[in-house]
């Protein structure tokens, strides 16, 4: 007899089989549609010292990261081979280029970074050799050639003040907003990389003199937000692979972040979480608790308020990540980062009020003291004012 569990497993199997055939069809279609590969990935990997075995290991990891079962491994490998065929226009606005740096520079190349090196960048403001009118031509050509087929990757927030004139670029002096509107309207998908493009980040922090805002907010469009300052390259590569595999964008949370990467809080799988639950906290930098690797909650760790996969994927070839290195999470993947996460090295309730040293606790204690003194004085005055009435009550009982 078939149990409930068997029926469930059969259903899941059928669903995955359907998904698998959908992916295969999509990859076949993509291979026909997309331009010829720029480089042969396997030759590129070999020349960088990455063996076939390493590549297969990488596909296992990435498949698991995308929350897919192992049968998808060959398809992930196939999608990775198509990586260099996907035309990408990479725009830079108000930002520090730290995201590009984080993605392109690694201590030694791994598959993620090589994939990003082979990416078919039609236009990238910091990396391209072309300048001036030539660069403008490249962009126009890319927009014409791949209309509706390219991926637009945006790095940096859009200043909206002075009709966007805080940010102009190119020989024609286009404002950031005009350029972004022109390019994103022709793109197959818009991927915001980094917290600036996703949520505004430091550009949009108070007092925000340039009136900067995220791409989605400034242009009122749906974007995929790979949040983080900088984000993990794996999250970007995974999202592009997802696009190649399924022909569509991954499921997003309500802030536009891919759920497969930003589903859980840093706090939920932090390696120091047992110390949080056991009430073992670092009280000051460099104390014995810090040496023992206890919880950084009292040092202002923002892990409990931050969604991200930093602790799972880690940075620099999975060597380390902020909490492992001994500093709390800053909350860089969250909207309003800087304003809502301040003070970065103190718990949230020690946020100061209107500058200075006062916190909500000092205000609360002061108000409570004033209230107690006030009601005490008031009660005394009321008693004096109503003394005759009190007297009447007392005598009336005697009668």
């Amino acid at each position: 007899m078939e149990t409930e569990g068997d029926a469930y497993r059969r259903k899941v199997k059928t669903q995955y089989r359907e998904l698998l055939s959908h992916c295969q069809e999509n990859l076949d279609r993509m291979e026909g549609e997309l331009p010829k590969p720029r480089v042969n990935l396997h030759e590129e990997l070999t020349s960088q010292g990455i063996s076939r075995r390493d590549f297969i290991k990488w596909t296992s990891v990435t498949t698991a990261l995308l929350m897919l079962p192992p049968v998808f491994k060959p398809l992930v490998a196939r999608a990775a081979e198509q990586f260099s065929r996907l035309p990408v226009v990479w725009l830079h606005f108000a930002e520090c280029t730290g995201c590009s740096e984080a993605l392109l520079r690694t201590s030694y190349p791994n598959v993620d970074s090589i994939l990003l090196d082979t990416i078919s960048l039609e236009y990238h403001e910091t990396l391209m050799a072309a300048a001036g009118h030539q660069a403008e031509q490249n962009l126009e050509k890319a927009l014409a050639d791949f209309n509706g087929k390219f991926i637009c990757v945006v790095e940096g927030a859009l200043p909206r003040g002075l009709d966007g004139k805080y940010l102009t670029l190119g020989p024609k002096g286009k404002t950031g907003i005009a350029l972004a509107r022109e390019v994103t309207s022709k793109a197959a998908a818009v991927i915001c990389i980094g917290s600036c493009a996703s949520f505004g980040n430091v550009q949009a922090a108070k007092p925000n003199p340039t009136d900067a805002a995220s791409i989605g907010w400034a242009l009122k469009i749906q974007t995929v937000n790979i949040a983080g300052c900088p984000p993990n390259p794996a999250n970007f590569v995974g999202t592009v692979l997802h696009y190649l595999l399924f022909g569509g964008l991954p499921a997003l949370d309500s802030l536009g972040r891919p759920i497969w990467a930003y589903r859980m809080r840093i706090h939920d799988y932090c390696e120091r979480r047992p110390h949080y639950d056991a009430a073992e906290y670092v009280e000051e930098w460099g104390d014995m608790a810090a040496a023992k690797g206890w919880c950084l909650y009292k040092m202002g760790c923002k892990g409990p308020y931050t969604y991200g996969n930093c602790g799972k994927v880690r940075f620099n070839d999975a060597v380390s990540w902020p909490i492992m290195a001994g500093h709390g999470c800053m909350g860089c993947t969250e909207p309003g980062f800087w304003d809502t996460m301040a003070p970065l090295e103190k718990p949230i309730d020690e946020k100061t009020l209107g500058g200075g040293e006062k916190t909500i606790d000092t205000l609360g204690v002061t108000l409570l003291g004033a209230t107690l003194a006030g009601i005490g004085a008031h009660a005394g005055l009321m008693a004096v004012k109503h003394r005759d009435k009190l007297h009447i009550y007392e005598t009336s009982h005697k009668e």
Partner: protein
Amino acid sequence: METITPKKEWSAAIRLNHWLRVICISFLIITGLYIAEPYTIEKGWTGEKMFMAEVRFWHIFFGMSIGLLFIWRFYLSFFSRFHADWQDFLAWTNWTNVKQELRFYFLLSKEPPEAKYLFDPLQSLSYLGFMVMLFGLILTGTIMMGAGYDQGLTALVYRIVKPVEIWIGGLATIRWIHHIMMWGVILFMAIHVNMAFLHDYLFKEGTVSSMISGTLFHRSHK
């Protein structure tokens, strides 16, 4: 001659609800202050302590309880068979009464405002504010609780309250608001207890004991 007429003021449900909320709020403030500013427990092995986890468990336990008590109180204010008192929370809309009450509290008049409603005008305003704060605390608390759990009732509730988290702008702000509103509740409690004692002392009608016995003894001079 003075006559004293006992009058039932509070139904048993309201009284029970009141004292259960007192217990819940007291424990919530104590456990909540610990969660906001925990102290380290140095001794013992990490795996056996779980102190913060237990404090959080009780905080969530009392938080869930006060959520249910709030729903019960909300229900009573509309559908109580004894006295549905939702209109009494709006006693502050009567402007003449507000003026009279201000005069009374500023020692300008000896006469308290006319007792048209269950609550005095300022009392009704502070109760309404307290109810709003309580709702805010339960809402923000539910958001923070649901963010950490994937299964069960909390996860179900979190799906409903998640849009509020997005609208307000993240868990960090939610936590800050939760902390600020706790101070609001502490201030409310200080004033509320003082006012109950003051009324008990001035009018000698048994204000404090009325929340236990349910009966207020009205005095009238004839």
